[in-house]
Every structure is written in C-alpha cells, then in structure tokens.
C-alpha cells in the first residue's frame, strides 16, 4: 500500500496485520518511533495518523492506504525544533529518553487540540505514556510551558 511518512511517499508490501510500528521501524527504517510493549500500554510508539495521536503498535497495515503519518523525526529536527521539543530541551526532561519520542508526539497532538489545558487535562492526556525513569514532574512543566509558548506564537 501507499502511505506518506513525514512528507515522503512510500509504497510497502506487507501483511495486512503488520502494525504500523514495525512498518516504520523495520520496513522503512524510521527508528525514532519506539517499541516498548506492543499492546498500547506504554505509548512509546505514539505517532500521528492523519493528525490524530495513535499507538502505532495497534494500527494494522490494512488501515494505512493513503495515510499521512508523522513521527518524531517529522515534528522537528535538532536544528529546527518544534515548540514542544523546545520545551523538552528547556526543561531537560529526558533521562534515558526512550519514551520521550512518544511523550512529545502525544503532547504535540494534544496541545494542537487543546491549546490551553488545565493541569487535569494534562494528566488525562499524558497518563497513557509510561516513563520508567520517572520524568513526570518535568513532563508536566514542559507541557505547560509549551502551551504558553504556543499561545504566544
């Protein structure tokens, strides 16, 4: 099937039930998206699919025809950080960093839909993304800061 990843069109020929996660990582070599649990419990594989945040381990290839996928690599680059990534860098959020691609994708999608969130909104939106290192206090600060930066932008 044909899909677009970070603006680049691709054509892949895989099983209908191969999850998007593995299409990205092992067929297309897009490794910013991470495998953590395979069962939508950790959020490390979060990407946006047609603008919505999804757990890519739960999206079968059969649903990808014509899809527009954005991964962390398509959100911003080291030389041109997205506002959410700027906030992550400013607050020095990451420890091991393995969950952070998913955290950032989740936060970016959430803030695009709810640019002025309450603390409770943030807790609701971000609690599906597991961080084993416990960077939650900094994730909260960074999301709030990104929200205010987006308001000012």
């Amino acid at each position: 099937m044909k899909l677009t990843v970070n603006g680049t069109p691709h054509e892949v020929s895989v099983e209908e039930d191969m999850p998007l996660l593995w299409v990205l990582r092992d067929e297309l070599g897009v490794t910013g998206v991470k495998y953590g649990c395979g069962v939508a419990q950790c959020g490390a594989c979060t990407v946006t699919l047609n603008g919505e945040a999804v757990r890519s381990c739960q999206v079968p290839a059969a649903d990808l025809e014509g899809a527009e996928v954005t991964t962390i690599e398509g959100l911003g680059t080291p030389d041109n950080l997205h506002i959410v990534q700027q906030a992550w860098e400013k607050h020095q959020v990451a420890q091991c960093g393995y969950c952070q691609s998913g955290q950032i994708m989740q936060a970016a999608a959430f803030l695009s839909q709810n640019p002025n969130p309450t603390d409770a909104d943030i807790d609701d939106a971000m609690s599906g993304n597991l961080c084993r290192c416990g960077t939650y206090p900094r994730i909260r600060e960074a999301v709030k800061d990104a929200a205010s930066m987006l308001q000012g932008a």
Partner: protein
Amino acid sequence: MSRFGKIARRSFLIGSAAVVGGVAFGVYKAKTPFPNPNLDDLAPGSASFNPWVIIDSDKITLIAPHADKGQGIFSAQAAMIAEELDVALDDVEISFGVPDRAYYNTAAMDAMAGYPMYDNSPAAERMRGVLGGVIKLVMPMMATGGSSAIPDSYDKLREAGAIARETLKLAASQNTGVPVDQLKTEGGAVLFPDGSAVKYTELAELASTIDPVTDVTLRDPKEWKILGKPMKRADMVAKSTGTLQYGIDFRTEGMLHATVKMNPRQGGALNSYDASAAENMRGVKKILPVQNGVAVVADNTWRAIQAANTITFDWGPAPYPAEQDDHWHTLAGAFSEEFLNADARTVGDAGAAEGTSVIGEYRSPYLAHAPLEPLNATVLVTDDRVDIWTGHQIQTMLEQRVADITGHDVENVHLHNMFMGGSFGHRLEFGFVDQAAEIANQIRGTPVQLTYSREEDFAHDYPRHITMGRGVAKVKDGKVNALDVQIAGQSVMKSQMGRIGMSLPGPDAQLHEGAWDAPYFNLLNLRVRSYAVENLAPVSSWRAVGAGPNVFIYETLLDEAIHAAGADPLMERIRLMGHEPSVKVLEAVGDMCNWAGADLGNGRGRGVAYGFSFGVPVATIVEVVNTDDAIKLEKVWVAGDVGKVIDPVNLDNLAKGGTVFGLGHAMNCEITYSDGMAEQANYYDFEAMRLNQCPEIEFRALENGEKIRGFGEPPIPPSAPALGNAIFAATGKRIREMPFNKHIDFV
C-alpha cells in the same frame, strides 16, 4: 550541541606509519598502569594524552567510558574533563570510546570493604585501598553500577583534562619560546600574553610528540566554570528529536531480526519443541537453537515474534518453588542459625533492653526491572572478528563472554556500547548478549539483531530479590530504646554472580545494606542480622539493590516504634541520628515542608523516612490525603547529600525520577510466580507510576558529605517507607507489605 563520536578500534596496526603521531607518549599521571587504548589506532598528527582525551587537527574528542542508562553520565564525564581542559561542551565530540581495562572502575569496590560508607577512618581507607589494588591486578573490570560512576570519574577525568591542558601549553611554549607560566587557556585555545591565541587542534601534532605533563594541580571548585552550574545534557536534543540511536535502533546492511523463546520457568530445561508452523511463515529465514531455547531469525522483528509465538514447547519444571506462597514460606523458615548470613551490627543489647515491645513482620516482593527499551543486541560474527552493538554495564567482561562463545580471541571482539533505554540493573545480565552471539555465530557474515518481546523480557527478568523482615523495637520514656532488625532474603549477589561462574566470598552484604549502616548512632541498643536462602527464583541487582527492601523494613519498624513512644517522627530520627550530614538532610527536609507533625487532621498525613545507601544520606517526606475514593499522594520533599554537585539540573531530575521510581513500585508492583512462571507479562500488570499518580516533588541538594557520591540509586530506598508512614499518619492503617495497593487503594 556536542556531537557523538565513534572511535574505530584498533583499525590500524601498532607500529605502522599510521600511529607515528601517537606512539611517543610516555607515562601519564592517571592512577592506572594500563596503556592508553586510544594510542592503538591514533591517526597521524593526533594526540591522546591519556585514555580520555584525543585531539587532532579538526576536533577534540572526549572519551566518556561509563555506560549511560539514562542517568546522564555521558554528559557529566565530558563536563569533568572539559572543566580542566578549558573547552566548551558544544565544541567537542563525546564518545563512549572502546572497552578497555584502562577504564576499570576504581570506585565500585569501595562499598565492599566491610566498612560503612560514612566511615572514612584510616583503617577503612586502607582496606578500600587494598581492595582497589587487588581488583586492579586480578580483575580490572570496566563497569557502571552501584552509583559509582561519578566518584570513579571525579578525580581521574578532571586530572585527564588538566594533563591535556598543561601538555598543550607546553607544546605552545616550545613552539614560541613563551614560558609556560605566561600562558593561559580558554575556549579550546592557548592564549599568549600579547592577546594572540592558538587552537588546541593546531597544537595537536606538536603535542603528540612530547611526553604529557604529569604534575598537575586540580582547580578549586570555586573556580569552576562548568561543573556545579546548571548544564544542558549533551544527549538532550537527540533524545527529544528521535535522533539518538539506542541499541535497538542500530541498523546495518543485510541485518536480520531475531527473537528468542526460553523456558518461562527460568533455568528449567527445554525438552522438545515443534517449530514446523513457524518455518514456512513469511520472512522467516532460520530457526536456530540457543542455550535452553529457540531463536527465530526473520527479515523483520514483528515477523520473528509472530513466528516464535507459533512454536510449541515441552518445558521442564522450574528449579525453584512453583508457587509464590512457597517462596514466602521458605523465607519465613529462614530466621535461624542455619541460614545466618551475617551478624551485621550489634550495639548494646537489643534483646535485653528495657521498654514496651513493638513487633512487626515486613515483606518486599520480587520486582522486574522492565526498562522501556526491551533487551536487544546486534552481533556480526565473521571468521576474523566479532562486532557487538548493545548497551551494557560490564563492558570488558561482555567481550570475554562473547569471545568464549564464538571462539575468537578477545582482542578481536569489539563491543560498541550504545545508549540504553533504561536498565535499573537489567543490563548487568549477559544472557541476551550470549544468545545474540550464539545466533550470529551460526550465520557468520550476517549481522543479526536479537530483540526480546516485552513478554519474553518480563518472563526472563531476573527480578529484585524477595525479602522478609522481622523486627522488635523497645520504647521507653517517650523514646526509642532498641531495635532488633532481622532480614531474610534470596541472596542477590550469589544468584547474580553464580550466573557468571563466580562465587561470592563471604556473606551477601546486600541482605543487610541500608540497615546495618543506618547511622542512628544515638540508638543505644541495636542488632541487625541477615539470613540468606539460595533456592528461590534467580534474582539480580535492581536499582538500589539491598537498601531498597532493607530501608523499607528498618524505617517502617522505626516509625512504628516512634509512634508507640509518642514521639515526633522527624524529631526522634534527628535525636537518634549521630552522623552530621544525615542530621542536616533530616533538618533540611523538615525545613522544606515546614514540618509540624505527622498528623495534619482531616485525613491528611505526612510520613518521614531516611535512607543511607551508596554513601548518600537521603531524607524523604511524603504527604498524602485520604480522599473519599482512595489515598492521594499530594506532595513529596526530598533532601540528599552527594558531597559535591556536578550538575544541579540533572541531579534534580534524578532525585525526582528516583523518588517516582521508588514510590511507584512500592504502590503498584510485584512479580509473583505460579506454576513456576512470573504471572506478570506486560505493563498492564506492572504499571509502576503513571503521570496521573505523580505528586509534586521538591528537592534540595546538600554538600556536607566528605566525598563526592553518585545519586542514581540513593533516592529510591526512603521513598517507600516515607509513603507507608504517611498512609499510617493519614489513616491509622499500618502497611507492612509492598506493594501497598494490596492493602489500600490509590487515586
């Protein structure tokens, strides 16, 4: 941002023209007799003054050999070198370098000298020196663990930077005739009195021809420009943009993907299997035997996992009790002379001491490490050499194990250590690398990446050891008069060392760590004994190791005693505490929260706990409120003393993250066995903490300790008892078993 460098190892022959620029170096002052591994393949015109600094005509490379599991040591090591070298971190390349005995850990053994880490007496220091010398001769091991990377690096790396700086100045002096004492350094350049400057990179070729200066003086911390100030971690932008390559992200031409299935009854036999369904599945290339299991090699990780799931197995029984209850029964029966591990501490006579008795029994369960990056390793075996791409905490030993598997000389086995997506002790184990090597050795010439499924990772996690504590406290005249703490556990060190063919000489100190050395010197009567069993589930070091369960036992019993005495939990701990830096962390945490007692009324309570581990005193206060639904964690205050702060920002992150880690597991997690298998298979039944349960956390760093210490583990131990003690203050319910959610609900 700084760049991530790669050092190609031994790609040139020693003695060839290629290393002319490098071979002339003499002895350098670092406290190691081992040759500088950078000289093995140094390009012409490059200078390497010691194992940690390489300068050539275009760049400065700092070697940061300690493994980075997320604790930030990659960046911190470079900062320690840069501070003395006078370079900005943005202007250098940082590399993990190549595994070599020159990077052996000189601090890891400090905890094993038989003296408490607060004891800096001449006798204790002498024993540490002897032990360090023995290790250097017998087994110079490159290892990252035990919160030792900062103390191991602190002097060595600053000295490495200073040696390089002074040698570059000498080169500049020789070139110009300007005396060395008139030269200054700044921004990666030597400055002359007339205001002109020459870059280090321009001096590299000349510097490579002179012996490194050996007599250097380290700067007073008051002069520091980088250390002690808020830093930006070198890996932060890469980790925020998906551009950092973890082991699992390694890709190379022709690489295949593999997964394994092993007996979920850990260590049990594989009797037979039927892989006929897997063989014909799309993308499957090979089905290969590995030690005690089967590997599926495919062209895609998902295809390998799908195929592996179709294999049927006949597994042998577990070599340990099949049911969890029997694990607890085993420990309950171990409080006797037969199982005595150590009479770890006796002060006064806790048995005969007067007072009203307070009695408790405490349980700390098995816990999986479960870092978010599943275990993985990529290996390429050819007839000439072996290359390994993975993240590991014991680098040199890993190369030797792989050499033993593939039959290569260890000199031809090359580990390229990678950033790790967490470890918590998981990547001290070797099994996954052994298997990757076994697979790759059967298909030489083809690189293979072995990835565990999350379920396989849980099933084969060697968890935190299970522990039971029994305590008797005596209270008299409103004070705690005696503690008798007895701890029985599955020996973590014997289990872990046994898997690498080593025996543990003497008792397993982890079974009383954090209890025998809690510096409550004003406690008049104390006995700490530990008992060891070895026939339970195989276990491994889990972040903070023995101090995790032991501080929970000790500080919960102490809290019960203080309550029975009618004393204040913070004030009585301060009264009992005789170790000055520890008194100060208790006072600090009280000051931070405006301490006014444990019971705040209206279902609101605060719990205090103190933990001493890896030489670091930490005090934690947790505030909870008993809402209509359940217990809610409101706020946490943490104070810790690491002697000297390297990066206050990263330290703050470690303090808060470690506290979340300690609290989350205490609340929500256990591994239990049924039919010989771990019952928890994925994060849905091992959640630890998620963001919605995370309280606000405030941290204060103190610098009263005599020695610099690492902080990766010390925040963990006091967090669990502080929460349990807070729940008691809020509800009157005393919880003596983790996870707490077996006994009380959390919001």
